[in-house]
């Protein structure tokens, strides 16, 4: 995950006392990444804006449920993720965990910040995101946008750690192929 600064933890502390300035700073920090995540899942601008707004309101309403201040970001994303699920109104189907695939997972995958794409590959990245199944897309977005750890992604999406690893591996493999295939 992107390093959580001490000032962010202080902001969460201040937000707990109801300081509007603290909320403003926290929302400003997360509004665009959160919107990108929601939009890339929902594919509807108005619905995405609504979900971001509802996520902010719920965060303000239920902040006392956040146990670790440093986890504010992943907690906010988990609220938005739940809102996306509600938006689809589909029962969440857990994919069966493929143990064989899990064994093949590469442990030396580069960090999200080490994935560098050329200008001409940007469209390919977006096309890839479109092609990925929703659960894989969700994991890849969380990995790239906020560099959340596998445990955090599992908590946000409400899936098993092994499933997250498997999905991320699948998505990264597809992305790697895309990069290699592009001349």
């Amino acid at each position: 995950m992107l390093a959580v600064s001490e000032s962010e933890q202080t902001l969460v502390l201040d937000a707990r006392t109801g300081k509007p300035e603290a909320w403003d700073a926290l929302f400003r920090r997360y509004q665009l990444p959160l919107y990108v995540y929601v939009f890339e899942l929902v594919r509807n601008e108005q619905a995405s804006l609504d979900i971001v707004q509802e996520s902010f309101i719920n965060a303000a309403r239920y902040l006392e449920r956040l146990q670790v201040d440093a986890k504010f970001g992943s907690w906010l994303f988990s609220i938005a993720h739940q809102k996306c699920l509600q938006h689809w109104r589909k029962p969440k189907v857990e994919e069966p965990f493929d143990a064989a695939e899990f064994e093949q997972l590469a442990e030396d995958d580069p960090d999200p910040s080490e994935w560098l794409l050329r200008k001409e590959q940007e469209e390919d990245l977006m096309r890839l995101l479109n092609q990925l199944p929703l659960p894989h897309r969700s994991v890849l977005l969380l990995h790239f946008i906020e560099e959340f750890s596998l445990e955090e992604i599992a908590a946000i999406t409400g899936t098993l750690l092994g499933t997250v690893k498997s999905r991320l591996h699948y998505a990264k493999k597809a992305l790697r192929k895309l990069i290699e295939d592009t001349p």
Partner: protein
Amino acid sequence: MKTPRQILLERHRAAETKLDRIRQDVVAQIHRSQQSDEAVTSSQTDDRRSPESFVARLWLELIWVNRSFWAGLSAVWLIILALNQAAAEGVPAGPAGSMADVPAMLAIVQEQKRLALDLSEPAIRPSLETPRPWPRPRTDLGLSNLQIT
């Protein structure tokens, strides 16, 4: 060269104006609710301090909250009072209406006294004259009847 994060954020940068508006709305909402919470808290504190509010609070917390109970209790008392009044009206006129019968009443009382005396006298007399029908205890016999050999 850009990271996927940079690419994704830049693609949606145009939405920031709308996101700013949403953020400001939510923060204003938080601010309003914070202010209203503070106003409620301070007004409650002020209310508790003033004496007239003490009476009002007493009325509210003691009477008004249990108003059905107090109304029921009042109704019961009214019924009891009404029944009591009705019973008092049903009793015949008191001694003030029978002052003319006083000599007759005195004569009756005298007659009752005389009869009571007649009945008690024969009962007392035999008890004084006749001996007791059962044997006397040995201690009543006296020392003269004991023979020491």
